């Protein structure tokens, strides 16, 4: 029997959160899709907009409170109360970034440029932009358009297409 395979043709990603790990999950998956030759569209909404806002895009942080998977460098538990101290979040975030850099994972802006260079498309959510009082000129120049949810769904049509909410 021949097993029929239906390889992915299009991937639509939605990023609604603005921590380092949430944004990078979206960017790694998006760039990975582009590298496989899969048509890729990424929709940034709510706090995810930070990733494509000029002012914020290269200063994202990891939350150090309320994350049970967070550990000390040696693997010991990381008490939430420690995460509340001034400077800890910034320190942890800097460490995350340096470790990613060592694996050749680029900063947010460069990562978006890589996705764009491969033909991936970046979109912003209109509703969230209105909520956060953001204008198109506040966004990174590579953002293709500001869309409503309906507009985005229109772009997500077709067989062998997946919508992924990171």
């Amino acid at each position: 029997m021949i097993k029929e395979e239906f390889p992915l043709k299009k991937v639509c990603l939605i990023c609604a959160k603005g921590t380092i790990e949430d944004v990078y999950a979206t960017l790694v998956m998006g760039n990975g899709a582009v590298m496989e030759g899969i048509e890729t569209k990424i929709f940034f909404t709510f706090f995810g907009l930070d990733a494509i806002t000029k002012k914020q895009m290269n200063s994202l942080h990891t939350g150090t409170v309320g994350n049970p998977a967070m550990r000390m460098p040696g693997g010991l538990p990381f008490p939430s109360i420690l995460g509340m101290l001034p400077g800890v979040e910034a320190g942890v975030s800097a460490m995350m970034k340096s470790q990613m850099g060592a694996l050749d994972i680029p900063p947010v802006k460069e990562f978006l440029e890589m996705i764009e260079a491969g033909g991936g498309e970046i979109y912003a959510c209109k509703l969230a932009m209105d909520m956060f009082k953001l204008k198109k000129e506040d966004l990174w120049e590579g953002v293709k358009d500001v869309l409503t949810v309906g507009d985005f769904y229109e772009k997500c049509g077709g067989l062998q297409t997946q919508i992924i909410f990171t």
Partner: protein
Amino acid sequence: MAQKVIAGISVDVNDEGYMTDRTQWTKDIAREIAREEGIELTEKHYSVIEFLREKQAKGETLTIRSVGTSGFIDIKGFYQLFPGAPMKKAAKISGIPKPASCV
């Protein structure tokens, strides 16, 4: 280990068609694998191929970012040279293993 005759030479390949012995690689083999992928190799392609082979020989992880900063080509140009899946295609043509990196 599977064998495949490419450009008149019998070479070792894995089940995905990647060469498993980099010493068997020649420019003629590269040209023929590229043709199978629908690519006519130019000098520009060869400079990228040489870069990838050198990095792989040093045991470095191959990433698309490193190609973009190689000085030979930017990332957009890389996608144009090897359309579709550039890292995989370029690795296959370069006679090196499929890149085991997510970036």
